[in-house]
């Protein structure tokens, strides 16, 4: 327990940790501020103003149509020779909704914000996790610690559990604050209507999956940095994965017309995990014909369960490899 306490303290005291948490909070704050700024609660007066704007727009469109008709009669060839085809818009084609500043609908819009929160925290978790163990290896702190506690597996697994516990705390705190902040934004600049117990339950499960993503990212960053014994090992691997396996692979697979090539790319799996499912449409494959819907491109649905199994497997393999290497390699 004392080792766990020491490692939790060590993680909290690191400037790198504080810096990245502050950075994440700043970005989250900017997103929330931007959302609040670009949304407005719909009231009778805003709707009346929007109606007035729509009316004005309708009158302008009528004027343009009339003007075009007059020009067409002078020179029909420049309008394709058919002046009867120039029809002015009807009033119902110009909706007042187009002139309303959107309001923040908590039920409809907050799930996307949860994905933003989870993705940002996952990135921070990866970097903090990598640095937490990588800097220890690099500075010699890990060797020093092993002189005090010569139990390699216990030391590494305690460090990992301290990291995951700390990340859970961070995620719960920021998640609660994030939810509260957007509830406030929805109250002041939108609507909180239709938030039934079922909607809350769905958001809760979404938040839990977000927490899972954060923990997986933290564990993978920690594991890769421990295998490479340097923070840069994890960061380099992450850049390599993004450049080679995301951009590079996406281009190559797309050119090769590989069936459902998005299956090989991370965003599809993260999307499936956070949004319960992700539909991949293969536009390059021969279409599936049905008498009712005609020719439709074939689709493949990645479910959150499939994504969960993949993330768990990758985490177990990487963390397992880090445990194996610390157990078997000399510490020099």
């Amino acid at each position: 327990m004392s080792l766990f306490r020491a490692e939790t303290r060590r993680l909290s005291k690191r400037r790198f940790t504080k810096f990245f948490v502050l950075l994440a909070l700043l970005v989250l704050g900017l997103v929330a501020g931007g959302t609040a700024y670009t949304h407005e609660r719909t009231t009778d007066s805003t709707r009346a103003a929007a109606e007035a704007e729509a009316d004005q727009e309708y009158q302008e469109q009528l004027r343009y149509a009339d003007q075009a008709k007059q020009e067409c009669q002078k020179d029909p060839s420049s309008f394709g020779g058919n002046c009867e085809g120039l029809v002015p818009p009807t009033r119902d084609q110009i909706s007042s909704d187009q002139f309303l500043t959107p309001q923040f609908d908590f039920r409809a819009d907050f799930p996307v914000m949860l994905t933003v929160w989870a993705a940002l925290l996952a990135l921070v978790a990866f970097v903090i996790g990598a640095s937490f163990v990588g800097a220890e290896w690099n500075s010699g702190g890990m060797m020093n610690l092993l002189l005090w506690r010569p139990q390699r597996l216990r030391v590494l697994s305690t460090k990992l559990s301290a990291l995951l516990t700390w990340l859970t705390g961070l995620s719960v705190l920021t998640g609660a604050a994030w939810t509260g902040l957007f509830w406030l934004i929805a109250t002041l600049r939108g609507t909180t209507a239709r938030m039934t117990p079922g909607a809350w339950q769905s958001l809760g499960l979404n938040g839990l999956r977000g927490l899972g993503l954060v923990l997986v990212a933290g564990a993978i960053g920690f594991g890769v940095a421990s295998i490479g014994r340097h923070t840069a090992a994890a960061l380099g691997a992450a850049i390599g994965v993004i450049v080679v396996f995301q951009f590079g692979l996406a281009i190559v697979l797309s050119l090769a017309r590989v069936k459902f090539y998005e299956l090989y790319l991370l965003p599809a799996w993260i999307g499936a995990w956070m949004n319960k499912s992700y539909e991949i449409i293969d536009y390059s494959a021969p279409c599936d014909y049905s008498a009712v819907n005609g020719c439709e491109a074939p689709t493949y649905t990645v479910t959150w369960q499939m994504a969960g199994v993949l993330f768990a497997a990758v985490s177990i393999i990487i963390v397992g490899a880090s445990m194996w290497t610390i157990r078997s390699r000399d510490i020099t």
Partner: protein
Amino acid sequence: MTAVLEISGLRKTYRGRKGVRKALDGFDMVVEAGQVHGFLGPNGSGKTTTLRTLLGLIKPNDGRMAILGRPVPRHLPQVARQVGAIVESPQFFGNFSAETTLSLLADAGGVNKLRVPAVLELVGLRDRSKERVKTYSLGMKQRLAVASALLKEPKLLILDEPANGLDPGGIREMRTLMRDLSESGMTVLLSSHILGEIQLICDSVTIISAGRRVAAGSVSDVLASHTSSSVRVRLEPGVDLNGAADLLRAAGAAITVEKDHFTVGNAGNPAQITKLLAERQIYVSELTPIAADLEDVFLQLTGTAPVDGANRQVDQVAASQGGWGQ
């Protein structure tokens, strides 16, 4: 006396592109309780590998080790609480203060945090304890490393080059600290290149070369068993000193001519000197053996004495030279 530390037949090999390198080749060492034991060896001789192996950082290929009577590395977790160690250069996370560093170690090792100010006071870092370690000089980091090793109030203290980077005052303080710790019953294993220090403060020594023990025992015993074969030769006034030196040199002696005498560096049998000179009617007025110090013994045993015009490489050990005239 009981042995606090025992190593026998320790082997460690590294496999690389250039083949297999034996870092430790059947190394043995015994450190008795309550002693300050010097651990000497040239660069690359296996000192740090021995200490790392002993402390569970490196896995040996063969051999037996025991600390406080318990086989390690199997029982290392049980004895670690009683062993304080610094290995090679002091290594700490630079952005933490000395106080935080020690407090975290105390937490990790289950040591009372009240020990932290006590050890900081002991090593002279009390007033700088709240500053970040990366602002420390090498000597200050060294002091912090010693403080971290003392935090546990260990029975066995293992220090690898503790005087590295210390100023003369710091070296003297370290020497006094070692003595005080030894007198309080702590056993100290001290690896150092400062042979004068070792000779001053150590009760016993082990000398390692090329992964093997080449000498061990009390400092006086090691010095006595490897007495210098150098003798100082003074002749009667008015005798041609250079002529006499050339005469001996022609017979294979290693001569260094001084102002009023010369020394024979490889005088395995000093009687040969008087015999050769007397045959030419040259009579010796003084023939004095030159007392060896630990540095001489070290250089002789490890074969690392500098040779004029040669650049000795690490791992290169000169062949043992027999005495002239034997």
